[in-house]
């Protein structure tokens, strides 16, 4: 078995004295692991930092084996992002959530493209926090828990959509909410229209996506807690608000 692909490094752990096991979200092969010989060496360790974009070549005798990966750096992001706590915590959150949510070896082309686009924006584009929120919405959709925010689940109306049902992830209008309004999640402009970069609105949107990550996605993955990295990112964003 042998293939070549590009990917974003999600995590790396040492394997023995000199090698490393990498977890990479690839463009065509989904989340994929591999052993990098010499991955803990002085030459390769700086390249194998989470968020790095790599050209990866994977080889194994059988498809079920973890296989050996050789990598070439395409783009390093660590130096750009680790100077600032917001951008660093966002990078950590992206990598941790992908490793948390995605199954291994299942192609996720849309998630991959959105992840590359988001990582390129973080720190470089002022609207990156909003892009992060949209990325979490896409991640929910890719894992089978997409939100439907286009029309009211009760009345079918497309106006006055100000709530989200915490059970179904569907939008609810003010008129449709009725007596259940206090049990619904708020649907702010960042999540509804996706065109505001106000940190407070983005944070409110992330609390909604966080609800679905925690109560819908996590139980489907064996009730693992959400990664601390996401909690730290929200704390950093909260401090900015």
């Amino acid at each position, binding site marked *: 078995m042998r293939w070549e692909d590009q990917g974003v490094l999600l995590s790396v752990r040492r394997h023995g004295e000199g090698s490393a096991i990498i977890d990479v979200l690839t463009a065509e092969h989904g989340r994929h692991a591999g052993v990098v010989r010499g991955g803990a060496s002085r030459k390769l360790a700086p390249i194998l*930092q989470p968020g790095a974009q790599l050209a990866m070549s994977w080889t194994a005798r059988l498809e079920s084996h973890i296989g050996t990966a050789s990598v070439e750096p395409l783009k390093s992001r660590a130096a750009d992002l680790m100077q600032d706590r917001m951008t660093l915590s966002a990078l*950590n959150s992206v990598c941790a959530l992908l490793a948390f949510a995605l199954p291994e070896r299942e192609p996720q082309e849309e998630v991959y493209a959105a992840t590359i686009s988001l990582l390129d924006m973080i720190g470089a584009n002022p609207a990156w926090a909003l892009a992060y929120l949209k990325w979490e919405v896409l991640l929910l959709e890719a894992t089978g828990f997409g939100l439907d925010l286009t029309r009211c689940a009760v009345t079918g109306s497309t106006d006055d959509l100000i709530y989200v049902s915490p059970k179904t992830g569907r939008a609810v209008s003010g008129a449709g909410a009725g007596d259940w309004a206090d049990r619904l999640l708020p649907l702010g402009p960042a999540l509804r229209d996706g065109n505001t970069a106000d940190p407070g609105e983005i944070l409110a949107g992330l609390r909604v996506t966080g609800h679905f990550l925690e109560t819908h996605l996590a139980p489907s993955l064996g009730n693992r807690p959400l990664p601390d990295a996401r909690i730290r990112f929200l704390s950093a964003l909260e401090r900015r608000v």
Partner: protein
Amino acid sequence: MSDDTRDIEALIDLMARLPGLGPRSARRAVLHLIKKRGPLMVPLVDALRNVAENARPCLNCGNIGTSDLCAICADETRANGEICVVEEVSDLWAMERAGIFKGRYHVLGGTLSALDAIGPEDLHIPKLLDRVATENVREVILALNATIDGQTTAHYIADQLSGDIAVTSLAQGVPIGGELDYLDDGTITAAMRARKSF
């Protein structure tokens, strides 16, 4: 394995578990020790026994020593108001080899890691905050590795430290003897950003 070589094989097996040694190099090392029994093997056994009996982490900083307080923490001249925070004892020893830092240290015992589920409570961060409050600390130097995990930990500690304490970190850039052509682009980026007037 015959009875008369069983002990030697057991020693080779143990040596082969050490970092940097495999079965072949462990065999060479054991053979060398047997040949140099008087000048090398016996003192090595004594030294190993002493360390096994006495080595323990310093109650204050986490360095390894042979008493409750390591030599650095026991030295009053090093209480200069500076604490250098490092990940592991090996980092502390590297700093001491350089001989440039004259204050005290604090060993975290690792870094925050989402992958390994290491949170702040698993590191010696609460102890660091205690020390900052009680040791008249003016500056905390975050000498953590220039990795994503290292810098995540550095930002977390900086957030926890408040008041008039200066929080600094090591510079990042071109190593002494380094050639630009062989540096990764992340290091070059960091070096370019940290450039200074010449």
